[in-house]
């Protein structure tokens, strides 16, 4: 019994995931989600998911896939809620591509904002910090 406890705690890892792929364009976006879910199910911890390049579209609250397809942003939101995840969308990549929170929308005088709840816009420093403190960093690219 003691051995198993020791083994479990030793095996627990801190992960960071980088998602470069756009949702619905590339399967890589789904693989990232499945990997995240699986690592959390196994009791590992997910320090941060960093959405970069076209991956920033994952943070759009306006994604409206057909009913028989998964809503990728909502799936991440649910996972974040269940596990208190830090979902960071690269601010520079996002603002360029029209994924804005209320703050950025105001700054650029845009008619609305669409960053989904549970995601936050932040800079690459958040990625570097995450790399520094995680045991494993995985890139999901397209």
């Amino acid at each position, binding site marked *: 019994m003691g051995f198993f406890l020791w083994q479990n705690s030793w095996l627990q890892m801190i992960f960071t995931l980088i998602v470069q792929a756009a949702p619905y364009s590339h399967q890589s976006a789904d693989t990232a989600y499945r990997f995240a879910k699986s690592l959390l199910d196994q009791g590992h911890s997910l320090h941060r998911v960093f959405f970069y390049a076209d991956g920033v579209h994952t943070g759009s609250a306006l994604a409206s896939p057909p009913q028989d397809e998964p809503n990728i942003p909502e799936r991440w939101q649910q996972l974040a809620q269940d596990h208190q995840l830090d979902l960071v969308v690269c601010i520079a*990549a996002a603002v360029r591509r029209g994924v804005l929170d209320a703050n950025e929308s105001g700054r650029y005088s845009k008619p609305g904002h669409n960053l989904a709840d549970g995601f936050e816009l932040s*800079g690459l420093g958040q990625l570097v910090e995450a790399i520094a403190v995680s045991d494993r*960093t995985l890139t999901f690219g397209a």
Partner: protein
Amino acid sequence: MSAKKKVLIINRRAPYGRSNARDSLDVALTCGVFELPVSLLFADDGVYQLLGEHDAQGIGQKNLSATMAALPMYDIDQLYVCEQSLKTQGLETSDLANAPTAVDQDAIQQLIKEHDVVLTF
């Protein structure tokens, strides 16, 4: 934060046609700002990032070569280029900016071994 992680960034895409080169450079520079040691490996079409004197104004983009030239100011001076990719592209190290070190297959395996984290773009 304990011992600093060494980061290897592998660049496999040509500049300008897609955002990978720019995205990668931004990550490298941020690693530099936060004093995380970073090395860059250019392979496949990524070697074109180091070729030629860029002037991207006409295509509405920022020059990557200018940023690339600033890498040493961020203490990023470990630049490597895949020897096999160079051969495939008909290029020599002397054709490239930033004086990268040419590495063969074994040396690339060694680079991956020596770094704690590998990112690809």
